[in-house]
């Protein structure tokens, strides 16, 4: 009887052992790798298209000899034990924008076993040119808006470390001129004087009204010599020992002409600069940059008073706070993607303006704020376009040096919101998806 029990135990033990070994099947150590077929496929597709040959071939008729050449090229490229299947899919989009893929043609050299992998590449037809046509600023409202970029050769900049006003003007021209019907570089302070007089006009433009004026000189603003001491318009540029009067004039003209005045970095209109006029040993900003006079915080206050239609008064007292690092808000990020401008997403704001100026000077920023306000400084605006109820606007980018000119460009585009007309990559017949599936035959 016990022998029978022992036999039962033996059977149970052996059964448990056999069942366990049946389930615990491990791969052989030599199967730890095979050639990475996906990466081999990806590199094959990319190298075949390095000179555009693959793009040319896949848009040809399936009976064209180029397909035979492609088949031979793939066979010649891959190791003998690797089989392939190359499939080309047409892309088509319906009216709702849903893209569907339809097999156009495929070539292969053998069937696949269990071990295969694939990579794909989206290719565009060499006969198609993708275009991006921006709508001109003011076109939708039938305004003729001219972009003026201050490029004065006789002025120095400040807070634009590493650049000159002239080099920034050139970069800004490249960035923004496609969005404007007319763009003009203001090449000297005397030309700026003409602009302030309303007589600096591009061909075919009747007035300076509604223009955008970008000051690329950072915290300094070029001043025509007429507005300096002894000039014919001294009373509009200088009063009580301060050039803050000139800033008031700028604010008033911004309102009068319905301009958008753009300060690309730092505290707006903090200095005035004219290298021909300010030649004295003390005509420097306190940091060794000559050819300029310090206006101080009175400049911005005077500008805002002018913009608001108030009389000039020299009032000291800064309107800003250094709020530290700030990040683009959702609205700005949307615009970054829309216009294809990608500055670094985190910037440092040391000249964020307090939002009390909105009510004090009848300004509003609507959706033009670029950055999330820091939680510790919820009442300070790092960068925005402040438009006045009675006309005119000030774009103030209160960031620290070194300036990223793309932020100022983005601020303007967010303010005017020109539409960009693009040809669609997914439009039928313009793009095709190529997949190359590779399989390995035989052992690894």
């Amino acid at each position, binding site marked *: 009887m*016990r*022998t029978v029990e*022992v036999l039962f*135990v*033996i059977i149970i*033990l*052996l059964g448990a*052992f056999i069942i366990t*070994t049946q389930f*615990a099947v*491990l*791969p*052989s*150590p*030599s*199967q*730890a*790798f095979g*050639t*990475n077929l996906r*990466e*081999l496929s*990806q*590199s*094959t597709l*990319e*190298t*075949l*298209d*390095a*000179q555009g*040959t*693959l793009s040319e*071939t896949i848009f040809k008729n399936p009976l064209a*000899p*180029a397909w*035979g*050449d*492609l*088949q*031979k*090229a*793939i*066979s*010649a*490229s*891959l*190791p*003998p034990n690797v089989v392939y299947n190359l499939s080309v899919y047409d892309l088509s989009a319906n009216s709702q924008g849903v893209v569907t893929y339809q097999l156009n043609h495929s070539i292969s050299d053998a069937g696949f076993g269990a071990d295969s992998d694939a990579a794909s590449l989206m290719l565009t037809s060499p006969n198609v040119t993708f275009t991006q046509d921006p709508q001109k600023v003011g076109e939708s409202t039938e305004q003729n808006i001219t972009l003026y970029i201050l490029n004065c050769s006789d002025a120095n900049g400040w807070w634009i470390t590493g650049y000159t006003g002239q080099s920034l003007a050139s970069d800004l021209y490249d960035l923004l001129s496609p969005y404007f019907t007319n763009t003009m570089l203001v090449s000297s302070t005397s030309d700026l004087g003409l602009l302030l007089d309303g007589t600096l006009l591009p061909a075919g433009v009747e007035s300076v009204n509604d223009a955008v004026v970008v000051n690329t000189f950072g915290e300094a603003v070029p001043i025509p010599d007429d507005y300096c001491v002894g000039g014919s318009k001294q009373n509009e540029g200088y009063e009580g020992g301060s050039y803050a009067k000139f800033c008031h004039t700028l604010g008033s003209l911004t309102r009068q002409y319905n301009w958008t005045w753009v300060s690309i970095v730092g505290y707006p209109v903090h200095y005035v600069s004219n290298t021909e006029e300010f030649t004295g040993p003390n005509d420097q900003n306190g940091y060794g940059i000559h050819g300029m006079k310090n206006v101080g915080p009175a400049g911005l206050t005077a500008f805002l008073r002018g913009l608001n239609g108030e009389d000039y008064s020299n009032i000291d007292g800064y309107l800003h706070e250094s709020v530290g690092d700030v990040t683009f808000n959702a609205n700005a990020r949307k615009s970054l993607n829309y216009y294809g401008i990608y500055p670094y997403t985190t910037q440092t704001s040391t000249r964020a303006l307090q939002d009390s100026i909105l009510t004090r000077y009848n300004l509003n920023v609507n959706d033009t704020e670029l950055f999330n306000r820091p939680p510790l400084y919820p009442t300070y605006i790092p960068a925005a376009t402040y438009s006045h109820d009675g006309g005119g606007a000030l774009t103030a980018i209160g960031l620290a040096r070194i300036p990223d000119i793309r932020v100022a460009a983005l601020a303007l585009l967010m303010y005017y919101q020109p539409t960009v007309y693009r040809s669609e990559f997914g439009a039928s017949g313009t793009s095709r998806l190529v997949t190359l599936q590779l399989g390995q035959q035989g052992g690894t």
Partner: protein
Amino acid sequence: MAGATIDHMISLTILIAALLVAMTTYNGMFATAVDYDRNRQVANKAVDLMNTICLSSGNPTDWGETDASLLGFGLQDPEAGGYALSPYSIMRLNTAFNDSQLVYYGGTDTYYNNISTNYGDAILTPIGDCVNYTTAAELLGINGTYGFNVDVTPTLDVTVKQNSTAPNLKLNVTVYGSGMPLSGAALNYYLFHVESGTPCPSITRYPTNPPGVAHTNSSGSVDIEFPIDADSAYSFVVYVSLGGVNGVGYHISNSVDDNTFIVPLIDGYEHGKLNLILAHSGEFLHPGEEATANYNASFYTLTSDFQLQQCVIPNSAGLVNSTAGSYITTQIPASETGLLVISYMANGELGSVIVPWGVGALGVSASFGGDPTGYDFVATELRQVNINDISYHVKVSAWKLGS
């Protein structure tokens, strides 16, 4: 009582036997699992190394075009991006597996690395400017933990042979890819015919520009005939393309003794130019023996559509001899891929040397790294790349060092 004891003893014996069998089997399974896991790590390391080598340019990114110290290892062409390797970085690799493969030149008292196995297939690089295996392993972060090896070989096998029966020079070009003949491939070719002159030989190019064109037949070959004598000295280079795959082949025929030729050596970089030494081969092969050769050198830059444009270089013609320290210097653009064609005349006999600046220009292969012999498990990774628009295979092998 005795029966019960026997029963217990039998059952205990069987139990112990079953346990022993189970432990042995499971131990084997665990060992297999550990081996598999370890091999998997090596395989992943091979993929990592391949990605780093092929998809990063290193630091500085243009290290192949300078003799600057290397701070990061990678072979990607910084201008092309993607799966394209720098033709210059590969030339700075120390491909010698041991010191006996290095070339000593007494004229500069310097050892040089020859990326090719023969003289005359590549410009020799001073060993001090080369990146050796240990440095590369350190920069890749695997020194002492993993070994690796990189093989860069052209995808297409293009062979050129001279047809000996024809009175005029007739060359047979055969193109193979992955072991199969490649029919219908388009050929762009140039022949550099060396002609005697006084005192230096001259080079006549057939055709001048654009290059000659031909196509391979169904067996992957084609005969090309030139209106020159079959016994002439010449260099021939042919670029092959089909369906996005490109290859290159070349052939040299000299009337001069095989031991006489000109050896180009790198002598540093200067303002975007590569300083070159042109030395007599006697200094390498028969030191101490006096020998001279008149030479005529031309540098041709290679365009993206495989056309050659001649570039003026200093000291393009002269006399070079094998006396120690006696050599000619010249300059070529450091960032322009091309071919240096040197014709020479020694004792009235003619010959030529054709060497690439940038490995792709002449389809040079290279192998760099350690020796995997003796390791149980070596993982390999294969990718397709372009070098100077010439298709190459890159194979990276990796293995675990130590126990």
